[in-house]
């Protein structure tokens, strides 16, 4: 088994937020915490509006692990980055270090106290016993130990969000790109290689001032 990874196909994501809802429902994530969210760029620009589902990317060289002063992070054999809430002190360093904004902090309490960090677990729970109530209450469901993949990806209606062994989902994604036959017109190509944007793309009409 290689490393567990997420890939989001921006050509397919329709910003339905089903992944966000599935995650919150599966893990009973508290109000104000979103382990996963959908980011839309070029919102309203015809032909250029693209959405992407973002959560913890379970980095191979995770900056959150590097900066944590209490070393609460660990990596499983499958490359999933998890953390121990019993060790976390809620300092927020991981939040500053993460390029994806994955670490979340519940802000409940009288003065909006910053609680222990919460983030996507790739549906792999935490250090508690697999599938136990204690694990569920702190980290949510442990679907990996049930032989399942993350709920967000498995329920994605357009299969934009892929999750699983990096080699397997990279093959799936590669097949799509080959079948599409897209080349320089594919979205994001211009950003990466300096080509002009999509020829059909046009900016929205300016709002009329009354």
């Amino acid at each position, binding site marked *: *088994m290689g490393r567990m990874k997420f890939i989001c196909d921006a050509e397919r994501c329709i910003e339905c937020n089903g992944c966000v809802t599935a995650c919150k429902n599966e893990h009973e994530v508290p109000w104000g915490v979103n382990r996963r969210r959908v980011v839309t760029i070029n919102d309203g620009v015809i032909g250029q509006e693209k959405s992407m589902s973002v959560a913890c990317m379970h980095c191979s060289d995770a900056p959150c692990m590097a900066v944590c*002063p*209490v*070393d*609460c*992070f*660990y990596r*499983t*054999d*499958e490359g999933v980055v*998890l*953390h*121990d809430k*019993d*060790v976390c002190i809620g300092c927020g360093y991981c939040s500053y270090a993460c390029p994806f904004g994955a670490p979340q902090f519940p802000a409940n309490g009288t003065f909006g106290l910053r609680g222990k960090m919460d983030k996507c677990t790739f549906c*792999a729970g*935490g*250090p508690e*016993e*697999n*599938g136990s109530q204690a694990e569920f209450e702190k980290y949510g*469901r*442990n679907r*990996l*130990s*049930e*032989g*399942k*993949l993350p709920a967000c*990806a*498995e329920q*994605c209606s357009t*299969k934009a969000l*892929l*999750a*699983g*062994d990096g080699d*397997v*989902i990279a093959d*799936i994604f590669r*097949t*799509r790109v080959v*079948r599409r036959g897209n080349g320089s017109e594919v979205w994001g190509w211009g950003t990466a290689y300096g080509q002009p944007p999509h020829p059909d793309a046009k900016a929205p009409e300016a709002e009329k001032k009354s």
Partner: protein
Amino acid sequence: MIRIAAVFLSVLFLVACGEKAQTASSSQPDAKAWEGTANVHTAKGYTPGQKAAWENQLRARAQTQNEYLKVN
């Protein structure tokens, strides 16, 4: 005799200068995902507790995301 006593006492006093390791205890060792779970939600069609079976299960499950394998 006095020399031995002096060495002994100096060692005794210098012990106080020692420092305990301040490294934060790392996370508890987590159970492996392939070891499975006892709850009723375990996916059917594979044997929990066998690493190879678990890996095959996840590979097969990942392919359900590949619509090019679908017949419809």
